[in-house]
């Protein structure tokens, strides 16, 4: 994969922010990274929030080190999944061939903390749709 100069800039901005300042700056870094990754996947096409892509993830993770997620996007030809609060937000990029029986993928991912997991799918008609789910990672304890 070729890393463009623009991406390199984003990556370094993101990394600097991650080490320098918590929360706000890290979110900003992730947003920039999200934008870069999204643009790379969509080649600049518009992305809309849509029902065509569905994320199944726990509201509260039982174990942040291995969180089961499932993304389905019937008819899609490709999708990407990003964990916005992770130091490296990229999770997976999937291409579905014409013989794929269903356009759905499930895996387990590691989450550094409470954050949004975002999936973008390239639909059958070539448009892009996005879904997101908040997964809380908690210390736990104190159940009633």
């Amino acid at each position, binding site marked *: 994969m070729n890393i463009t100069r623009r991406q390199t800039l984003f990556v370094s901005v993101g990394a600097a922010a991650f080490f320098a300042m918590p929360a706000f700056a890290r979110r900003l870094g992730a947003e920039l990274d999200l934008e870069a990754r999204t643009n790379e996947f969509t080649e600049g096409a518009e992305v809309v929030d849509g029902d065509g892509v569905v994320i199944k993830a726990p509201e509260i993770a*039982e174990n942040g080190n291995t969180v089961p997620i499932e993304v389905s996007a019937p008819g899609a030809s490709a999708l990407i999944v990003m964990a916005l609060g992770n130091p490296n937000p990229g999770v997976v990029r999937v291409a579905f061939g014409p013989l794929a029986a269903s356009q759905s993928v499930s895996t387990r991912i590691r989450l550094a903390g409470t954050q949004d997991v975002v999936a973008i799918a390239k639909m059958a008609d070539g448009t892009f749709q996005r879904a997101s789910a908040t997964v809380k990672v908690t210390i736990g304890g104190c159940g009633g």
Partner: protein
Amino acid sequence: MISRRDFLQTSMAASAIVGASGFGNWARLAAQQSLTQDQLLQFDTFGNVSLIHMCDLHAQLKPIYFREPEVNIGVGDNRGVVPHITGADFRALYGIEDGSPSHYALTYNDFSALAKAYGKVGGLDRVATVVKAIRADRPDALLLDAGDTWHGSYGCYHTQGQDVVNAMNLLKPDAMTFHWEFTLGSDRVREIVDGLPFAALGQNIFDAEWDEPAEGFEPYTWFERGGAKIAVIGQAFPYMPIANPGWMFPEYTFGIRDERMQELVDEVRSAGADLVVCLSHNGFDVDRKMAGVVSGIDIILSGHTHDALPEPLLVGETLIIASGSNGKFISRIDLDVQGGRMMGFRHKLIPIFSDVIEPDAEMAAQIAEDRAPYEADLREVIGTTDSLLYRRGNFNGTWDDLICDALLSQRDAEIALSPGVRWGPSLLPGQEITREDIWNVTSMSYPEAYRTEMTGEFLKIVLEDVADNLFNPDPYYQQGGDMVRTGGLGYRIDVTKPQGERINDLTLLATGEAIDPARSYVVAGWASVNEGTEGPPIWDVVEAHIRALGTVTVAPNTSVIVEGV
């Protein structure tokens, strides 16, 4: 044309007017000081199906006192609505007269005085009498237990739940679901469940390795009653491995899984269900949200958050029933189910006044038999309390203040943390504190009282984390406990803020100084969900503390300032 929702609302109004819920009557009875068992049980049998709901017994087989919460804050859409209404506001909402038995049963004010007048509540032998009376009216009434049953007492701990299982088997439930039961460990849970003479339900109990429905727990079961096909779908507590030690039951995973709930509702509807009941340990706010997300559930019998509501809550076309905790109440719901639809209902939250309801002899004998080996230990008097000891409430209760004091003095710590669980009965001023009383508020399978160091920064993270589990505006992100209790540590909390901004002005009470994020503090606590936690069991710590004091007095706690209410 009148819609089904209108039918249900009309039923609700009729209940309130004629006093079928019993509440208007109680107030009048109070004036006469003549509450009788017949009046508590009075119910005009209705329709063709009866349900009996119980939940959150927490192994309280004997009568106890239980003070309802003073502080129960709702956030987001749940701000200021039931069950987040307490005290005088609660009484005004339901038309409950001050000083009446229902005032005593359902609200916290004047608790000590009213407790002396009206006596203890609960006791499974009294519950048995009520259940038998309902079955005399309607022999095929369904008894459904929403869980948190095999946990919470000296006897339950020492018999690994067997004393409660024996007593409950005598009560003959038709189905149950689960939460604290799993803290017995998965081997023991499976052992008990394998021998249960009734259905063990949980559509959200999954195998952790394969993420598929776990063996041994059915998602739902069928009953045929009064010519109606009834599906009862179970919903276990969704966040067990987070709120409790997941290492004790590593084979299982849970979650809310409302998509699967919808699939199952559709499945039982297409298989001809006339009535769909969800037996749930979600907690009230989660059930309210789920009722709006999942369509086709007629009734949610709700447990976990220990709320006692004298009327069902109607969400869309779903009724939610909440029946309290610690054996203090059961609910009876009579339904008219016609042609695949619930067309009307009659409901009564029955308070188990122990001095009014005759104990069932068979159940009393069963409980006595299982207590016999421990009776001397249970009854040993450790001290006396001058103060009302209670736990329930979003922030510190006096029982927890006492437990935190015990941790500070017995474990030589600067700060104490005690879990915000909602179980644990109350003691009245002047009462002796027995070993049984101490175990009733501490008994669990991970009782180690740890002593460790935490930085000020980490303490803030812990408080923020727990606060979000209680005050996240989306109920699906809540775990249903109360706020962690603190000893030696004061703070200010704004419940309306997002996580990370709720907790401010952390103060070390011993010096009055602000907590330094960089400094390490010696912290003692108990009920850690981490494997390998070391320390003496919390009941020994509390017993030693009370023994040393002789007589316990707990001053009002002013160290937590709550804002945004």
